[in-house]
C-alpha cells in the first residue's frame, strides 16, 4: 500500500508518477480524480490532443479503481456480477463489462482482466467495493482493492507500439487488441494490456509503484526518436468522445448516484444493450432487463454530430427546430481531426423511435455577449473516430 499513515493530512494524494507530472506541468491545472491529484492540462490542450492522435501520449491511470478478484468462485462471482457472457473470456484477455443493480439500472462499467481461471482484475470508473462485497455472498471469492498497489500508465497513439519498443519493452508486436502480456522493462516486470480509452492504438501498463518512475523515464527516453507527450483529463475527454466511449456518472446517472426515480439508466437506454446477454445464467438485474428488453426503449443516449461550428456546451435537444424539448446533450467536444461538433445526447424516444428531426438550441457567447442559435443534429451509430491502425496486428512500426 502506498497510502501513508498520515495520508488524510493531504486532500489529494500524489500518484507514484507525480514527480514527473509535476515537472511537466506548465499550467498547474490539477483536479481531483478518485482522491488523487491529476492534471487537467499539462502544457497545451492542442499539443496533448495531437500527440495522442498523431504520435504518442502518456497518461497516468493510477487513480482508476482497481480490484483484485480471486478464488475458486471468482469466475462464477464475476459472471453473476456483470451482464456479459464471460464464458468467452480467456486467460490473458480483457473484456469490457457493465453491471447493474436488481432493477437492471447501470451501476458502473469497467474492464475485466483475466490472468488465469482464478485471478482477475476489475477496473472501474467509480468505487465499487461495497457493491462487490454485497454481490459476493454465497461465493468463495476474495476481493481486494488494489488501486493504490498498482501503478498504471496509458501509452496511446499511432506510435505507441514503437515508443514502447524503444523504451525497451519487447514482445508487443503479436499482442492482439484486448490481450494481456507479462513482459519486462529493463529488469522489472510490466504487465501490458492492449487496451485504452482513446480509440487509437494503445497500451496500458501495470506495474509496482516502486518502478513507476523508472518506467516513466524509460518511456520518455524514447523522445530521442519519437514525439512523446503526457496528457491530462481534458484531452482524454476529447478523445474518448471521438471514440464513442461513454462515462458512467457523467453521461448518465448511475444507479447508486441517482436520487430521483427515473434518473438512473439501463444498458438499453445508453446503447449498451450489446453488452447484455439475457441467455446466460443468472446475473443481477437479469429479470428486470428481460422485462425491459421486450419493451421499446423510452429514451436513448445517442452519438450525434451537431452541425455548424458553434461550441456545444450544455444544450437542450428538440423534436424539430422550435419543436418540443425531448432531451439534452450530456457531453460534447469539438473534434479537430474530424472537424465536427461531436456530442452524446439523452433523447426521448416516443414508442421506441427517435424523433425524425433532431435539433439542438445552442447558447454561446460572442465577445461576452450571449447568442442563441439552432443546429440540426445527425445521429451516428458507429464510433465517430475509428482508425484502421487501431486494430492492426502487428501495429505499423515507425
Amino acid at each position, binding site marked *: 500500500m502506498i497510502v501513508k499513515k498520515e495520508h488524510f493530512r493531504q486532500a489529494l494524494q500524489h500518484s507514484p508518477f507525480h514527480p514527473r507530472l509535476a515537472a511537466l506541468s506548465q499550467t498547474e491545472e490539477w483536479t481531483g480524480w478518485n482522491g488523487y491529484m491529476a492534471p487537467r492540462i499539462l502544457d497545451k490542450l492542442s499539443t496533448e490532443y495531437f500527440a495522442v492522435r498523431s504520435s504518442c501520449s502518456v497518461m497516468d491511470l493510477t487513480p482508476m479503481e482497481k480490484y483484485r478478484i480471486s478464488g475458486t468462485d471468482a469466475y*462464477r462471482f464475476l459472471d453473476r456480477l456483470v451482464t456479459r457472457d464471460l464464458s468467452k473470456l480467456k486467460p490473458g484477455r480483457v473484456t469490457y463489462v457493465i453491471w447493474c443493480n*436488481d432493477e437492471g439500472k447501470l451501476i458502473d462499467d469497467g474492464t475485466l482482466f483475466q490472468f488465469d481461471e482464478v485471478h482477475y482484475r476489475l477496473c472501474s470508473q467509480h468505487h465499487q467495493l461495497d457493491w462487490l462485497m454485497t454481490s459476493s*455472498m*454465497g461465493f468463495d471469492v476474495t476481493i481486494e482493492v488494489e488501486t493504490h498497489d498498482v501503478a498504471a500508465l496509458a501509452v496511446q497513439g499511432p506510435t505507441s507500439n514503437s515508443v514502447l519498443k524503444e523504451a525497451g519493452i519487447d514482445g508487443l508486436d503479436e499482442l492482439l487488441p484486448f490481450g494481456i502480456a507479462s513482459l519486462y522493462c529493463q529488469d522489472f516486470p510490466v504487465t501490458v494490456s492492449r487496451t485504452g480509452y482513446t480509440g487509437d492504438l494503445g497500451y496500458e501498463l501495470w506495474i509496482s509503484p516502486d518502478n513507476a518512475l523508472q518506467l516513466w523515464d524509460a518511456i520518455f527516453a524514447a523522445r530521442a526518436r519519437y514525439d512523446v507527450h503526457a496528457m491530462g483529463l481534458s484531452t482524454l475527454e476529447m478523445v474518448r468522445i471521438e471514440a464513442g466511449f461513454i462515462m458512467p456518472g457523467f453521461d448518465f446517472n448511475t444507479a447508486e448516484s441517482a436520487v430521483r426515480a427515473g434518473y438512473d439508466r439501463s444498458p438499453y437506454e445508453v446503447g449498451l444493450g450489446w453488452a447484455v446477454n439475457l441467455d446466460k445464467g*443468472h446475473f443481477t438485474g437479469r*429479470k428486470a432487463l428481460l422485462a425491459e428488453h421486450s419493451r421499446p426503449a423510452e429514451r436513448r443516449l445517442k452519438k450525434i454530430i451537431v452541425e455548424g461550428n458553434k461550441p456545444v456546451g450544455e444544450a437542450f435537444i428538440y423534436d424539430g427546430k422550435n419543436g418540443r424539448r425531448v432531451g439534452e446533450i450530456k457531453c460534447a467536444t469539438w473534434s479537430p481531426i474530424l472537424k465536427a461538433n461531436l456530442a452524446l445526447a439523452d433523447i426521448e424516444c416516443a414508442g421506441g423511435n427517435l424523433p425524425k428531426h433532431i435539433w439542438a438550441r445552442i447558447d454561446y457567447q460572442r465577445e461576452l455577449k450571449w447568442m442563441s442559435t439552432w443546429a440540426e443534429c445527425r445521429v451516428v451509430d458507429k464510433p465517430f473516430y475509428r482508425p484502421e491502425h487501431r486494430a492492426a496486428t502487428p501495429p505499423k512500426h515507425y
Partner: protein
Amino acid sequence: MTERVDAIVIGAGHNGLVCGAYLARAGLKVLFLEARDTVGGMTSTCNIDDDHRIPGLAHLSFPVCPGIRKELKLDDFGYSPGKAVNTIALDESGRHLSIGQQIVSAPGLGDRDVSAYVQFKKEFLDCAKALRPLFESKPPRLKDMDFADKLTLAKLGWNIRVGLGRESMYEFLRVAAMNMYDVLEEVFDDERLKGALAADAVLGHHMGPRSPGTVLTWIARLYGELNGPLSVVCGGPSQLGHALLQSAEASGATVRLRARVKKILLEKGRASGVEMEDGEIVQARLIVSNADPRSTFLDLIGAPELDAMFARRVSQIRGAGDVAKLHLALSGTPEFTGLSASDIENRLLIAPSANYVEHAFNHAKYDQYSTDPILEITVPSLHNDTLAPRGHHVMSVTIMYAPYCVAGGWQEQKATFEDQVIAQIGRYAPGLESLIVNHDLLTPQDIEHKYHVRQGHWHHGEMTLHQSFMMRPVHGAAQYDTPVDGLYLCGAGAHPGGGLTGLPGRNAAKRILATGTST
C-alpha cells in the same frame, strides 16, 4: 423416471398444509415434502421418552381462521378447537389473577382495573377486527397496485374510519405505533395484570414491552382471538395438522414424510423442481415453500441465483429465536400453591409485572438468558390422557427469553438454565422437582435443528414493523410470489406472519391460483 406434479409444497407445517389443500381443491396435483416424520410442524406432538408425549412447540392456540375451517371442511375431517382456557397469572404469594376473554378477577384487584380490562379488550379486539382485510389478503403494494390491492386498502380505510368510528380511530392511530408498556401504564394499576398483558404482547418475539411495535404484535395476537378462545394443543385426531392433511388428501394431495429438500432446481431462472437429500428429483411447475424465507432463498435457492441486493436483504432479515421450550414428564399431578386441580388445566403465566417482563428481556439484548424469565405453562395431559401413562402427566413450558446465541454457548449453559427454570416453577409448585421422571429442553438452536427453521424463530422472522405487511419478509417477495418465477412463499415468514392462523397459507394459495397457474 422422475416424478412430476403440479405443485410441490416444501414443509407440511400448518401453513404449508393450508396452502396445499387449497391448491389441491383447485384441481392441482399437490405433493407435500416434509423433512420430519410427522405433519403439522410446530404443532405436532413429539416424545419426551417412550411413555410420555407432548405438543412439540406450540402448546396453546386460537382456533384456525373460520374461513379456512369452512372452506377446507376441517370439521368434517375431525378438527375441533380444544376446550377454552383462561390465563392464570401466577403470583408468588398465591394471589393469582384469572384472566378470561372479557373478565379479569383476582383477590385485591381494584374495580377500576376490572372495568378498564373490559373496555381495553373491546377496543383492541375492535382494532384487530378493523385490520382484518389486511391480515386476510395479500399485503397491498404501494406502487403499481392491482385491483385486489386497492380493494384491500379501501376495506381497511373503511374499517378504520367507519368501523371503528371517529373516536376509536383516533385512539387506534395514537397507540398503533406505541409500545405496550406505555399503553398499559395509561390504562391499568395492577402490576400482575400489566405483567400478563405485557407478556402476551411480546410472546415469541425478540421484544420487550418497551420495544416499539409491541402494540401491533399484541393486536396480531388478538386477531387470533377473533376466531375463538385460546385452548391447549394436546395432540390427537382433533388437531389442526391432521385435519388439514386429511382435507388435502381428500382433494388428491399426497405427502411424503422424512423427505428433506436439498435444493430448489431452476431452469432458465424458473423453479422447475426440487432435489431431495438422497439425490432424487421431483419436478413441478409450482414450488411453494413453507420453509422460512432465509432457508428458502439462501439455502434452497442460493444467493448466486438471486439478484445481489435481494439476497442481501434476505440475509439481513431479523429473526433470531428468543424462546426455549421445556418438556417435563411427571410421575403425578403437579400442585400449584393456591390453585385447584381444575385451575391447572388453564394457561399458567409467570410474568408478575411489566417491569419483570422488560427486565427479562434486558438479558436477551446482551446474549444472556433471562435469570427470571417469563414462563407460560400448560399441562396438556389434563386435556388428553393418552399423552402419559395413568397417573402421570406432561408439563409444557414456554420460556422467554432464551436467545439463539447465548454467551458461553448453549452446550455449556443448557443444564444450568434448565435447572434454574425448574427451580423457578418450583417456587409456585412446591414438590414439582420430585415428580420429574424425564425432561427435555429445546433451545432456539435445538428448535432450528428439529424444525428446520433458521435460528429457531417461531415466526420465521421477527414481526417488527419493518418486516410486516408489504415488507414481509422483504420487499420484492411480499406478495407470496418471489423474484424466482414459479417459486412462492406460504409460511409464517410471509404476511401476516406467525401464529396458528393459517392465513399465510391461504393468502399464498389465492395468489398462486390468481397468477401462477397459467404459466
